[in-house]
């Protein structure tokens, strides 16, 4: 069980080599297989996640949630997906068509790219980049461009306002997000995510870096555009914000990408603060799934409890609270590391 996926990959590559393919082609085929698997898992996972979110919000709000289709309504999301796929694809006449069409694709591509560096188990990482964390943050911030594209090309005031809010929010929250992760990097001494996981074999970084975790969590919620920071969507004010003009599968792609992002950000939190794939008894890939889902539950819990924060409060929270706190955290971490080194730790 432990090496289930690795063994599958190894069998496949052995088989390809036996067929007489060179190492280059074998690696290429494997890469394609890996990416297809990731995309499939992401899509299936989102279907489960949407169902889970609706069930959980039902539980929080003292109602049943979906319960008609299949046991506990678990086929509801599949039916919804089919409905979205068959809906008419409306493109308003005054939009910037090229950008309008590419925005959802861009969003989903960026979200999927995030998975490249996350170790999903022991020795299970698509690309073991030595600057994995840096890659994650920089690619993750590209999502705002997708939202800006959608908002700008829609030629709608709500969309534009939503997009502008999104840009302002992302720029403000990118900084505390990156700063909060620096503490972890300083202790682990590496930007490589596998190395960071390895550094947590004795103690999880949540114990050493609780402040960083809280800052990361808040900033990540803002990055994900999830409640209480769902400014770009802001249903009650901006009807649907940047996504107002989108229908059918194009809209669903945004939805898909947001959930994909949610999984990625939660998986990163699990990797950086909760020991990644490390855990007793169960296989490593199962541990990271469990940890990721638990973190996602907290994200959902927050979304369904809190009202939306106001735009200017959002800004002042970032610049006046999160940035100073994360800077102080870096300072304290640095001093702490030096002290421990001096004590010969």
């Amino acid at each position, binding site marked *: 069980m432990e090496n289930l996926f690795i063994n599958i990959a190894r069998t496949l590559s052995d088989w390809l080599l036996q067929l007489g393919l060179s190492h280059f082609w074998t690696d290429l085929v494997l890469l394609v297989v890996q990416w297809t698997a990731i995309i499939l898992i992401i899509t299936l996972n989102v279907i489960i996640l949407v169902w889970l979110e609706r069930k959980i919000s039902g539980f929080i709000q*003292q*109602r049943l949630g979906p319960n008609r289709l299949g046991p506990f309504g678990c086929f509801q999301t599949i039916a919804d997906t089919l409905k979205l796929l068959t809906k008419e694809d409306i493109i308003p006449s005054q939009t910037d068509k090229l950008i309008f069409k590419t925005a959802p694709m861009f969003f989903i591509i960026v979200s999927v790219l995030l998975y490249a560096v996350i170790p999903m188990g022991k020795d299970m990482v698509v690309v073991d980049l030595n600057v994995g964390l840096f890659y994650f943050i920089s690619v993750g911030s590209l999502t705002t461009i997708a939202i800006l594209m959608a908002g700008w090309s829609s030629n709608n*005031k709500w969309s534009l306002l939503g997009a502008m809010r999104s840009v302002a929010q992302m720029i403000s929250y990118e900084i505390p997000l990156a700063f909060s992760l620096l503490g972890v990097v300083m202790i682990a001494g590496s930007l490589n995510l596998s190395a960071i996981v390895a550094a947590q074999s004795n103690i999880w970084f949540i114990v050493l870096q609780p402040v960083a975790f809280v800052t990361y969590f808040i900033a990540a919620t803002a990055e994900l555009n999830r409640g209480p920071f769902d400014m770009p969507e802001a249903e009650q004010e901006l*009807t649907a914000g940047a996504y107002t003009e989108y229908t059918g599968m194009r809209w669903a792609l945004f939805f898909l990408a947001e959930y994909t992002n949610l999984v990625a950000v939660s998986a990163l939190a699990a990797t950086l603060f909760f020991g990644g794939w490390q855990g007793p008894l169960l296989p490593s890939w199962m541990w990271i799934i469990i940890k990721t889902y638990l973190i996602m539950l907290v994200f959902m819990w927050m979304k369904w409890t809190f*009202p939306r924060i106001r735009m200017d*409060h959002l800004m002042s929270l970032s610049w006046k609270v999160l940035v100073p706190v994360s800077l102080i955290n870096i300072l304290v971490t640095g001093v702490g590391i030096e002290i421990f080194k001096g004590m010969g730790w």
Partner: protein
Amino acid sequence: MFVESEPYIINIGPQHPSTHGGMHVEALMDGEEVVNVTIHLGYVHRSVEKIAESRTYTQFIPYAARLDYMSTNLPAWGYVEAVEKLSGLTVPERAQYIRVVMGELSRIASHMMFVGSLAIDLAATTGLLYCLRDRERIMDMLEMTSGQRLLSSYMRLGGVSHDLPEEFFPAVKSFLTDVPAMLDEYNGLITGNEILQARCNGIGVLTPETALAYGVTGPNLRASGISYDLRRADPYGIYDRFDFNIPVAQKGDCMARLMVRLEEIEQSARIIKQALEQMPEGEILGKVPKVLKPEKGREVYHRTESAKGELGYYLLADGTDKPARLHVRAPSFINLMVLPIISRGSKLQDIITNIATLDPVLGESDR
């Protein structure tokens, strides 16, 4: 300045999640800041006042109940009292008490809906569901008495349509004992939330002077520090027999408007408790002629404290069984007029909060 910016117009409504019905708010914005707000009303206009002229006095009761559909018994009550005043009908004691009980239950339902809709307008969806859960118990009680949940048309000229059924009393008693627990829950989930406080404190301040100048009434006026409640200032029905407080807040902001309503739920529960204790046995419908024909030229203006404010009915009789003229002084309409004043200079998101806390019912304001 490298970039020139100019104000632009954003249309909130008439189809919008947060306008509480068909209302069109034209907001002139400078970025996220509100320069001016214009309200366009009339999307739910059903010419109720004109309809009244072609209906008999009795036939109009269901229309009155549909004015403020969030607290259906209160506008109907105001109307039947106006007609009773016009034609000198008497109402039996028991019916008076039943009206108080049902009216105050409707007021609680309306205020619960207010709290819930404020929560969802600030994107706290769970708050709405909690309020709806509790309001559901009131809806069940309305169904017990009249067979209808939302628009019960329970009031009749000279009384009420049915006596209270037996199962009503345990239901209302258990509801009243649960009211403090419900309010505790709202305080924990909604009013106690720091984000909500940040979005309501000091937002949409309505000064007492503006409120008086615009004729704002009801909880919105009391939130601005003026203790004016028709149940106390000009008691109608049997309100002079009950002991209750009039909640007043001083600040006049969105938070004050929310707190006043939460306290009013408590006070309404107190009134219901007293009314149930004092309720005598007896008739529920007085002697009313089959065809009501008030003499020509008689007119009456009767005002009651509805959940939204001072709800007044002006009736002019022309000697037939139909009124020559009916005019409704709709508190929602008048309260809504201060929206531009309290919204200017605030943020886009504050317009939504302001609309929610002014608590308009478009069925009443458009008529």
